[in-house]
């Protein structure tokens, strides 16, 4: 076997492996990616019960309620419309989880319409929500949330 042929074979093997990886990635990404929902989208076109999705929006003021076991919280997530999605989460709330701030909940929609969160992500950026946000209306706050929660529009 000449050196040139060997190089050709190596290139083909490498290309095959990379293409295989690409195809595998494309196939499993279609199945495994978590789709992102805004509250208004979830209200109008809910995902299937049990399907892993993400819900992102603002924690509604005054909606955070803790259950009797002391570790389960219920709250409402709102977006740019009055639609609010109830969310239930068991665990310690993230550091930046406060009312009127952006949050991304990972989990799935339950049969009763309550979003069961397995994980809550609150943005930790040094460009924290400024004090001016206090006292703003929901709509303005939602706009602020869009700015402070990167990737949320």
């Amino acid at each position, binding site marked *: 076997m000449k050196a040139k042929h060997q190089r050709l074979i*190596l290139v083909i093997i*490498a290309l095959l*492996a990379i293409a295989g*990886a690409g195809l595998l*990635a494309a196939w499993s990404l279609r199945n495994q990616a978590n789709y992102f929902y805004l509250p208004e989208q979830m209200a109008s076109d809910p995902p299937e019960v049990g399907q*892993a999705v*993400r819900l992102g929006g603002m924690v509604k003021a005054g909606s955070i309620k803790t259950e009797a*076991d002391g*570790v389960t919280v219920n709250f409402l997530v709102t977006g740019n419309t009055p639609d609010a999605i109830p969310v239930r989460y068991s665990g310690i709330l993230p550091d930046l989880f406060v009312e009127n701030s952006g949050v991304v909940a990972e989990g799935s929609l339950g049969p009763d319409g309550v979003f069961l969160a397995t994980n809550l992500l609150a943005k930790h950026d*040094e460009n924290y929500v400024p004090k001016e946000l206090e006292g703003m209306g929901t709509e303005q706050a939602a706009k602020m949330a869009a700015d402070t929660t990167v990737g949320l529009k």
Partner: protein
Amino acid sequence: MIAEIGLAALWLAAALAVLQMVSGAAALRTGPAGEANPLAIYARPAAVVQAFLAVLAFLLLLRAFAITDLSLKLVASNSHSMKPLLYKLTGTWGNHEGSMLLWVGVLAASGGLLAGFEKRLPERTMGATLAVQGFVALGFYAFLLLASNPFERLPVPAAEGTGLNPLLQDIGLAIHPPTLYAGYVGLSVAFSLAMGALLTREVNPSFARVMRPWVLGAWVLLTLGITAGSYWAYYELGWGGWWFWDPVENASLMPWLAATALMHSVSVLAARDALRTWTIMLGVLAFSMSMLGTFLVRSGVLTSVHAFAVDPERGAFILGLLGLYIGGAFTIFALRAGAVAEGKRFAALSREGALVFNNVMLSAILAIVLLGTLYPLLTEAFDVRVSVGPPYFNPASAIFAIPMLLVMAVGPLLRWKSDKPARLQFELALIAALVIGVIALVSFFGRFPLLPLLGLGLAAALAVAALLPLKGRKLARVPVATWGMVLAHFGVAVSLFGMACEGAFSEEKLAAVAVGGTEQINDFAVMLDAVTPVAGPNWTAIEASLAVRQDGGEPVILTPQARNFWSPPQSTSESALLTKWNGQLYAVIGNQAEDGRWQIRIWWKPFVTFIWYGGLLIGLGGILAIAGRVKVDVTRRRAASKGDQRRADLEALGAVAPQPAE
């Protein structure tokens, strides 16, 4: 004044980068008689002076942060006079402009080191290399000076700074970003060298020997940076996880994967003169991944839990630079790769063959991670927002990682060029027996997820296989670089063992506990003694005092805190860790429920620390490999200079000087 000097230094450095580029390119044009171009002599000094200026600019910014110079916009918006000094200093790179200045400083410093100390390369190749390095630096100077000037003054000095994100007020910020950046940017030298060699058609073993320490050094820094970052996220975020497949984490993993492949392929090139074009390709790929990582982290195009200092508008600038450099490099590669002569041949079953296989597997994992990281960006173009997490990354990367780890166990035992499987019957049987035996043994005790189970089997086999290259050799005579390889491969086994144990055997407890109440986890009884308010220099906190008794022994007090910083107003959760030889107890305090009970979350993570011990071992192995190579090189240089000396003496005596052998 200080800030203006810093800015002037940056402009001067940018000008020198232009000189370095022009002068380096001039080295490629030799005169009709083959004499060097007179312009070419400026490239090396330009690189060295540029390094001094860029480092000076960074030090001046560091000083501005140290004394909290509030007339600087950057200091005012990211620091605070009441912050502890350490965090004032580390805050220099805890923001966009400062971290880009650090990036550029390291870039210039590594270019300066290359220009100042590397004398082995032919002058033409060196010129081309420095020209490419200057071109890369110039783009980033432009980015700093035009789009993110760190020395911008405020019209009126601020009365007080805004402060630094409390999550970044940690010793982790002092270690993790500089290490990672130095690794990212060290790969720029590998990139420039690869381009230089490609432009001058000097892809050969002596070029590989020049490139190797840079690749190894960058790889060690990346390894240590990722290890430190993983541990930092583990204890600082308070989620009990050590890797989240977050875009920012992937951004550091991708250059590491490429650098790992490059490091192995450059060794093949140096030792056996094979894999020439492949090495060049990986050199381009590795630095491309570094720049892509910088883009992903800096631009904030992807949602991340670790992203700090993001600015979408500047993202376009970095994207432009990225397109220019990566596109340009791959164009030159496509045009020139055909002109690189084929290297030496080898059989499929040889050490080269095993390394090629692992290189391909690493590239495949890189493709998996890259596609998974960029997929959300792709779908966003169609207005569909998705996120990609462990359910994708874990199995998809394992499909390629498992064969890679198996070949990694056998590879170092194979001979160069060609080998026979019969020679390794015992070793192969031992490795297979260990994998199957451990998996069978563990499954006997309970049902565990598939991947951690495979991980345990592979870890056991790898740990033994890593030591097999030492079998039958006199340990005192084993080269230092070989010890490095053994240690690094053993580190992979240790790390894998930690990951598998964490995945298979972790226990978790979440409860609301009244003061005086006790929770049981594994064989630890955790009692909530008291909850008290405490205060630090720029924070106040609620501190839980947890008395942990193992099997009814003496109590150890753990004090997890929920901290409130006042500037910026933000709260963080400080986890408390109890480290045993066989794992860690990880405790976090949450909020107080309305009835007065406190939320406590406790994990028992067996052998989780092995993940980072393994990372340290891998890094240490890399350091040993560099030390070994440098030792050999110094000996060789000393011998060469002795030879030169003798020739010069002969010439001085009037004898006919012998022609130097090429």
